[in-house]
């Protein structure tokens, strides 16, 4: 079964500094990977996805993610953090990309990002 691990419960970074939120995955076959962000009392907002192609994926709000097949990682990055980036971040993998039906997502436990001014 597919699984995702987010090894850090919380990441603290100063405004203007680069940020990284870590994600590792375990899948059979090629992974379909996603990052979502959740603000308090809101649903999940899609940030970016990796399906195939370039290992560096660019997404919304200046975020990007680096896919590393050998390390089975998909870390979320941003060159310069903003206070407004403070939120809960989820990494997810599609359960079975080869299935005709079913785009069930398997989520990590989430990482709280705190950006201090």
């Amino acid at each position, binding site marked *: 079964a597919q699984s995702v691990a987010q090894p850090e419960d919380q990441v603290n970074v100063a405004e203007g500094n680069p940020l990284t939120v870590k994600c590792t995955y375990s899948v059979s076959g090629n992974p379909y990977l996603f990052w979502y962000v959740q603000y308090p*009392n*809101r*649903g999940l*907002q899609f940030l970016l996805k990796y399906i195939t192609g370039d290992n560096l994926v660019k997404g919304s709000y200046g975020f990007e993610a680096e896919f590393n097949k050998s390390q089975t990682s998909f870390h979320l990055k941003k060159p310069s953090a903003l206070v407004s980036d403070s939120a809960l971040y*989820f990494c997810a993998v599609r359960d079975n990309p080869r299935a005709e*039906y079913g*785009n069930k997502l398997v989520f990590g436990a989430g990482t709280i990002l705190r950006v201090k001014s």
Partner: protein
Amino acid sequence: DAGVTQSPTHLIKTRGQHVTLRCSPISGHKSVSWYQQVLGQGPQFIFQYYEKEERGRGNFPDRFSARQFPNYSSELNVNALLLGDSALYLCASSPVEIRSNQPQHFGDGTRLSIL
């Protein structure tokens, strides 16, 4: 365009009661999925529906059921509520089903509290 809409936003029930949660997908999206997010955890998959048929089911008891209507909106029903059913219930829609790599778009959820 309107995003995924869910109703109600908040709900308080007591143990043993029944609840119905509603979801309207983004216009043009035919696939709807339901997730349960317990406080401090990532969302857990409950159901997926496409073209009014169940296409996937997570590891949830039979107390949980759902359906999709001809307009692609969906309902999630939970019977015999337990304290452990307290959670944020998220609905997600996506435009294409078969071997889709399109991201799912989530609503803001229904926060269900069981007393």
